[in-house]
């Protein structure tokens, strides 16, 4: 039986990542949660805290952490640079912050991380909270290479390597070698099934580079989110906002006369309706990329929360029936998340292509 190349590629990722991710994530949880067990309520709180922590960006890349018998927290991972703009550039390593447990001193100012956000404090590191438990300390502008930024850079380099090696292999012959064999069917799929039907034969080439980049970027970064690295980039709304902003800018800056005509002066409808339609259409320009950013963000966040909650159930049940049940559920859900990772990348690319297509469509028939 001949299998489609895309399918076999998916199988490859499935086999390569799945056991690793499920098992290692559980291992990570065990180390994180098991030492602090104090009754059921304590475990629930700890699981909640762990999930919240996972959803946030952090200033260091920690793979897992555990508590020693003497109560000392041990973090396994590596620090990342903290770059602050606070009356001048302040650069120091995030190891100085000790995961929010210590005060870092840089250039005469003291900084402390509180819920993964850096605040300026006094030498003792006091965080003043207002009535709503929000810190009132000064928040310097934070340009740090955080975990998310670091992951984005790594994925960028990975993609550069993947695609330049693919491009190089085409110089030797029509058949790609190595990485290109995996990528060629996907690239062709995006061109033939996403770009050309939506944008049209005449204009699609202009948008191909963006569509390919955005597809592979979202896909790879979603898949990385399922590995034990614990990176979680696409559930940061700022990242999805930036991605949607690119689609928004490209759509509006490459749009032709007929696109704007359809927004401000819809042809083929009565004059009065045109006036009513114009503000709605204008709002639509912003709603389209907004729905893109919310969709990606919400899907990935929801997936991660559900997956981690189900894994967390193990520590609440604490018997073999409940644990094996939640293991099975987590396994099935991880499979679903693999599909979602690819599907969200596909949807984002597809809808971007659709919007580009609307921007360059020519209406000769009206």
């Amino acid at each position, binding site marked *: 039986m001949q299998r489609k190349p895309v399918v076999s590629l998916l199988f490859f990722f499935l086999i390569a990542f799945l056991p690793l991710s499920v098992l290692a994530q559980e291992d990570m949880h065990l180390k994180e949660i098991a030492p602090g067990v104090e009754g059921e309520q304590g475990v629930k709180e700890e699981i909640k805290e762990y999930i919240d922590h996972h959803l946030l960006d952090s200033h260091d890349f920690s793979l897992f952490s555990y508590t020693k018998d003497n109560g000392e927290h041990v973090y396994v991972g590596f620090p990342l640079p903290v770059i602050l703009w606070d009356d001048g550039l302040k650069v120091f390593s995030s190891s100085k912050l000790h995961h929010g447990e210590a005060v870092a001193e840089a250039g005469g100012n003291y900084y402390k991380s509180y819920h993964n956000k850096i605040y300026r404090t006094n030498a003792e590191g006091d965080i003043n909270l207002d009535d709503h438990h929000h810190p009132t300390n000064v928040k310097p502008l934070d340009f740090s290479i955080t975990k998310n930024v670091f992951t984005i850079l790594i994925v960028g380099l990975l993609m550069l390597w993947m695609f330049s090696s693919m491009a190089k292999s085409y110089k030797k012959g029509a058949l790609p070698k190595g990485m290109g064999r995996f990528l060629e069917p996907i690239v062709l799929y995006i061109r033939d099934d996403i770009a050309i039907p939506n944008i049209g034969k005449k204009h699609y080439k202009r948008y191909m580079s963006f569509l390919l980049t955005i597809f592979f970027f979202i896909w790879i970064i979603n898949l990385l989110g399922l590995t034990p690295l614990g990176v979680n980039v696409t559930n940061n709304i700022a990242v999805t906002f930036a991605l949607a902003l690119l689609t928004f800018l490209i759509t509006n800056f490459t749009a032709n006369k007929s696109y704007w005509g359809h927004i401000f002066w819809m042809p083929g409808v009565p004059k009065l309706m045109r006036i009513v339609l114009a503000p709605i259409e204008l709002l639509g320009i912003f709603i389209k990329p907004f729905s893109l950013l919310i*969709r990606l963000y*919400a899907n990935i966040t929801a997936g991660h929360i559900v997956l981690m909650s189900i894994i967390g159930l193990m520590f609440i049940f604490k018997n073999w029936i409940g644990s094996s049940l939640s293991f099975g559920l987590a396994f099935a859900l991880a499979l679903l998340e693999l599909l979602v990772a690819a599907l969200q990348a596909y*949807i984002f690319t*597809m*809808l971007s292509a659709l919007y580009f297509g609307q921007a360059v469509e020519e209406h000769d028939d009206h």
Partner: protein
Amino acid sequence: MTIPNIVGAGLIVIGAGLGIGRIGGQAMEAIARQPEASGKIQTAMLIAAALIEGIGFAALFAA
């Protein structure tokens, strides 16, 4: 989470579920009628489902 929030979230899920279920069902029917157009139908189905899902998520965040 208060009770109105929970009820609202439930209503949203019911609505989005009905919508996506209908899309899926109709797409199945369409594929059964015209198996040669299954590729196009699937694409259209995914787009429509994604749009409903987007609205559902936006409402869930508001709830």
